[in-house]
């Protein structure tokens, strides 16, 4: 049975990988077919829901370990840096404060 800490670790890993994928997609420009960009947009929407509904509440309620808090702050900083690329792709912006 997965613990809350396991779930948070998993979500942090997924969100970081998702951001890697979005950065790659932005770099690829028009090389990627529209169907790929469309699919990635939908999944990114879902990732932004994970951030808003799962991860951010866990952080704000103090449910993360110190290490997870640090990983979360790094993720927020990465998202903040990536905002121009996210906007350029037309993908959903994070619906949480990017300030820790």
């Amino acid at each position, binding site marked *: 049975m997965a613990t809350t800490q396991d779930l948070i670790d998993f979500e942090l890993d997924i969100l970081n990988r998702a951001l890697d994928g979005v950065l790659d997609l932005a770099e690829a420009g028009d090389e990627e077919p529209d169907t790929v960009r469309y699919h990635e947009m939908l999944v990114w929407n*879902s990732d932004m829901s994970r951030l808003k509904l799962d991860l951010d509440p866990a952080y704000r309620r103090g449910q993360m370990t110190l290490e997870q808090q640090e990983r979360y702050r790094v993720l927020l900083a990465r998202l903040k840096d990536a905002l121009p690329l996210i906007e350029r792709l037309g993908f959903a912006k994070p619906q949480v404060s990017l300030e820790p």
Partner: protein
Amino acid sequence: MDSIGISPCPGERRDAFVTGLGCFRRLPDLDTRISRFQRMASGAVLRADQLIMDAAAGARILTAEELHEVLEHVARAGFDPNARERARGELAGLVWQGQVLRGSTLLPPAERHYVKHVLLRREWPAGTSLEDYLESARQTILNSGSSVFVSAYQGQWQLAVIGESGNWRGPHGNEFIVVEYRVETGHWTTVFQPRDMYTDFIRTAGRERVRWLRRRI
């Protein structure tokens, strides 16, 4: 592409090709569009696709039999077997079929979706095979309890099916499976379990002209 005498363009990007007239960049969707055109020219296109477009345009209301015909067509369509998608950074380092994926690794869409949504994100139960994953999509499409709508995204008609994930819900899965089919390509564009069905999928930015053909949610 070799049959019309073009080949990779030396020193250029992988999607650039050289012909007798010089180097040209290949359009990303060109292969898919050619394949689609060939199908249309063969007359195989496609009563079911025409029904989707008619329904989407509001030109007709599909009968139960017509909707069944459309959904059987969509269930058979699957992902494009001829396309290839880069694994990209998100999947880099994962092992698939004995191979450590790199960002540049090219995979058929069905495999890339499977690796992403089943192996990495665990939206489906542990032990779900590639064929199981595709079968879950087909079951979702053909289940009379699923919801169906048509819509446009950047001018492309699409048909979406939303069904309860049920036994296909994995440890990090969600309540619904969505399958979306694009008329232009004749294939699925996505099969996954969104965190928030309405925000993430139905109301996604750019989706227009939503018309429900069957609504169960």
